[in-house]
């Protein structure tokens, strides 16, 4: 590089026609050509380095994008799996809820559910001066069925009675398994006169039903019932006690009957 000004001065002089002869132009051309080649090599190297930088930058960008895509996929997968665990928990929750309000053997609502339901019904009729009736049913001589035919038949009888009760109720009536062989029914919007034919239909339904499907051809099943209307202002216990009195009387008077209380 140090010869640059000198070389340039010499070339400029030659271009002005100041060069003495052709013999002196040749070394000048050689020097110029060397210069050109050096510059060309330098330019090639620069271009090459610049290209490399560009490529490295592009790769870096690509790896960021790739990394980002990988992370996004991972997060999507975590979210998907997490959602499935949530579904699993929700289903478990629903199952536990069902178990907590349903009697396993008969599929009817259990005592806990019925107690809650009756409390709500009392609140409703108290607010609206409405009415409702309940009926307490008990399978006659259930202990004898168990003793004679065994517990499996006893269980089948309970399930069969539950099915018949369910089939004979109106859409908005509720029947729960209240205790061992006891069932409690709720008839919303009914006074005791309205309830009487309902209760009678249920009693007859049990008496007439053929229980052969449940393998109970030779088992005769009847139920006794006590039914009563809720009196505004009284406690649930009082209503239940009255239904229970009716049931007791039905049993005492020979079973397979419904007694108003």
């Amino acid at each position, binding site marked *: 590089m140090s010869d640059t000004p000198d070389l340039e001065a010499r070339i400029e002089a030659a271009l002005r026609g100041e060069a003495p002869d052709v013999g002196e132009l040749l070394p000048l051309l050689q020097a110029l050509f060397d210069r050109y080649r050096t510059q060309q090599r330098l330019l090639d190297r620069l271009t090459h380095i610049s290209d490399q930088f560009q490529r490295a930058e592009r790769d870096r960008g690509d790896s960021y994008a790739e990394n980002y895509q990988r992370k996004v996929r991972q997060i999507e997968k975590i979210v998907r*799996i*997490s959602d499935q665990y949530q*579904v699993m928990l929700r289903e478990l929750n629903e199952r536990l809820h069902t178990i907590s309000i349903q009697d396993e053997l008969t599929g009817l609502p259990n005592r806990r559910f019925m107690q809650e339901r009756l409390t709500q019904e009392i609140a409703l009729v108290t607010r609206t001066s409405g009415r409702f009736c309940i009926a307490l049913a008990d399978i006659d001589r259930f202990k004898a069925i168990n003793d004679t035919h065994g517990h499996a038949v006893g269980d089948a009888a309970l399930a069969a009675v539950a099915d018949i009760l369910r089939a004979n109720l109106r859409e908005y009536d509720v029947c729960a398994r209240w205790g061992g062989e006891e069932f409690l029914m709720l008839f919303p919007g009914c006074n005791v006169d309205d309830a009487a034919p309902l209760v009678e239909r249920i009693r007859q339904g049990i008496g007439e039903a053929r229980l052969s499907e449940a393998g109970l051809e030779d088992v005769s099943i009847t139920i006794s019932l006590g039914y009563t209307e809720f009196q505004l202002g009284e406690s649930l216990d009082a209503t239940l006690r009255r239904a229970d009195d009716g049931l007791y009387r039905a049993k005492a008077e020979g079973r397979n009957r419904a007694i108003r209380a």
Partner: protein
Amino acid sequence: MDNLDIPQTSASPAIFADGTAGTVTMKGDSYPENSFELFQPLIDWVTAFLKAGQRPLKLELELLYLNTSSIRALMDILDLMEDAHRKGLQVAARWAYEAANERVGQLAEEFKEDCTFPFDIVPKA
């Protein structure tokens, strides 16, 4: 290599890493409050075990419920195993679940999806 033994709690699984046998077992539910605190020692253990690269590693899972950060930790462990597998190390996983709880089996399949090493999902009767 030392063993790692983290006892089960109501919110975290039993974790046992056996350096001699080359097994890691995880059993139970996992919804710890601080999953980093729970899983980091295990992730460190697995990293060190695989780095030593002397023995095969077997992951034995019997997990039921996992919260989101536990899912992430387990995926990190499976990723470590996948990397090791690609480098030629022998690794395997086995996930046992109650046959009645089919959903857990489906979830195990999700975890297995990106793994190319042997990963058995086994219903227990």
